[in-house]
């Protein structure tokens, strides 16, 4: 049963990942440039992109190290940003097949973007799309990082290129399809709200993140925003 969802396969996953890969490639370049500038050397950022493979966490670790933070602080910041992969992994788990190594490979190639592309709605995920999209994004992230550390300072300032705004735009484009729902109202703590659970969870998640931003270290607001999904506790999907 696992993995039998629909006709979408590796080709679809790879094709669907291309627009995102272009953005990830640019993001990878800016990561390589930044990591080099904070003294991580050229080799360590490339190894980190291959293994950790999580942009926001790698940026967080680099900025903590650049600010003179300890290894423990950098690791904690990065892992807190990546804590969201625990629930994301749980969502795809039932749809994966095969043994330990196959599951580990799918898990490694699961990032926000490949996870979103592989989502088929109603809590279904397509493992072939996840793998292919994840691979495409991994190649883009690695290539970008290598170019970033190789050319370093020769490239322009990422913020003058507007790359920092490309990312929320990308996440917004990923969010919109996930808001589709047949439900028209949500009951939250006994109150009826005239919007779908997806929309309520999104608004609540954004609000939690913004409220916590001034008071908590980077990464914590995003983890806490995940708690907005608890409004689904009383719901049948």
């Amino acid at each position, binding site marked *: 049963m696992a993995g039998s969802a629909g006709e979408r396969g590796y080709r679809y996953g790879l094709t669907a990942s291309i627009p995102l890969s272009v953005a990830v490639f640019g993001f990878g370049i800016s990561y390589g440039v930044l990591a080099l500038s904070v003294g991580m050397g050229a080799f360590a950022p490339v190894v980190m992109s291959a293994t950790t493979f999580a942009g926001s966490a790698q940026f967080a670790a680099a900025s903590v*190290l650049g600010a003179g933070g300890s290894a423990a602080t950098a690791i904690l910041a990065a892992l807190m940003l990546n804590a969201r992969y625990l629930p994301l*992994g749980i969502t795809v*788990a039932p749809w994966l097949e095969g043994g*330990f190594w196959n599951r580990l490979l799918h898990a490694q190639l699961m990032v926000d973007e490949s996870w979103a592309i592989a989502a088929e709605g109603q809590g279904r995920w397509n493992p072939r799309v996840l793998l292919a999209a994840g691979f495409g994004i991994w190649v883009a992230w690695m290539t970008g990082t290598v170019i970033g550390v190789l050319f370093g300072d020769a490239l322009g300032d990422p913020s003058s290129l*507007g790359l920092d*705004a490309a990312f929320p735009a990308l996440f917004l484009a990923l969010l919109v399809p996930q808001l589709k729902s047949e439900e028209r109202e949500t009951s939250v703590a006994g109150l009826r709200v005239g919007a779908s659970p997806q929309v309520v969870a999104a*608004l609540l998640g954004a609000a939690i993140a913004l409220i916590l931003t001034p008071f908590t*270290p980077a990464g914590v*607001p995003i983890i806490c925003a*995940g708690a907005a999904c608890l409004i689904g506790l009383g719901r049948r999907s």
Partner: protein
Amino acid sequence: MPDRPREAIVTTVWIVVIVTGIGTLALKAAGPVALGGRPLPERLSGVVTLVGPALLAALVAIGTLADGQRLVIDARVLGVAAAAVAIRLRAPVLVVVIVAAAVTAGVRALAG
């Protein structure tokens, strides 16, 4: 003889790279490896289908408005607003991302 501080920094960097790499894979793989092919309990799946909207919306909000621990309104807001219009017009994701970057870069260039 290499100078000590530099050596210490290099060690710190590699500790971060290795531990973060292992920790991240553990977080990613915990569900797939431990849960196996079993479906989620219905009660839980009602919750996990909402994880995506909640986290993606948080990433949008933080990416648009946060600058470190401060909330600021700057060129990114116009860039993301332009992206929202592009999404509304059913533009491909690549166009959405380019519109956001171009508008943001343009506003920054105009503002000096």
